[in-house]
């Protein structure tokens, strides 16, 4: 399962991929920050199309593992997240660092581009906005993006 409503445990993900043959392990954490476009964020609410998100995460992990000879651990959290909470975590383990960094980068970019997950920002001033829902436009691959959603 790639989605979870529980707190993400980086140590558990590391343990999942560590092995004597892997000399390079790269990780990425996407963390809830306290500001967006100069406004103060109180918390984020993530929701997902669970079945498709699981399928898409699986496709992305398999693509990375076949392209770079590595193993990947991936978790994305949904539900209500507070400032500082980890929303997404990726660990890529390979024989050498180049493959680990490349695979880790690939997975986070593809997760943001392809996995059906949405976040709603609750600002300190009480306003609530779906990220990207404003000026939605079509990109080349059929993926829709509004305002760029940074991790």
């Amino acid at each position: 399962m790639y989605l979870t409503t529980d707190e993400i445990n980086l140590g558990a993900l590391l343990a999942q991929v560590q092995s004597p043959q892997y000399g390079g392990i790269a990780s990425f954490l996407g963390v809830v920050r306290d500001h967006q476009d100069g406004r103060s964020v109180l918390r984020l609410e993530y929701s997902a199309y669970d079945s498709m998100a699981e399928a898409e995460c699986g496709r992305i992990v398999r693509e990375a593992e076949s392209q770079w000879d590595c193993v990947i651990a991936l978790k994305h959290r949904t539900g209500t997240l507070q400032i500082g909470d980890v929303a997404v975590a990726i660990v890529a383990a390979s024989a050498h660092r180049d493959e680990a960094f490349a695979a880790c980068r690939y997975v986070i970019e593809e997760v943001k581009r392809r996995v059906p997950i949405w976040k709603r920002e609750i600002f300190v001033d009480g306003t609530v906005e779906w990220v990207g829902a404003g000026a939605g436009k079509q990109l080349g691959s059929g993926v829709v993006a509004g305002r760029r959603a940074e991790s």
Partner: protein
Amino acid sequence: MTAVASTVTVRVLLFASYAELLGSDALELVLESPARVSDALARLRAFPGGERLPAKPLCALNLTQVEPDTLLGSGDELAILPPLSGG
């Protein structure tokens, strides 16, 4: 020639801002056969709030992204996906 079913019934899933627009996160559509994703979208636009859906929203049929001209089959799950913002 075997007889062709005259209608196609699909389950439509709406998420995030689109669920709010239409006031529902799941509904069933009965469309005249043959029906495409674009036909389902046209029907959704007739619902209150549906007129605010974008011209070409991202759509997934049975968990895979599809184009508007994709044919629908009875029992298909069609999801209309707002701009993705995971990560």
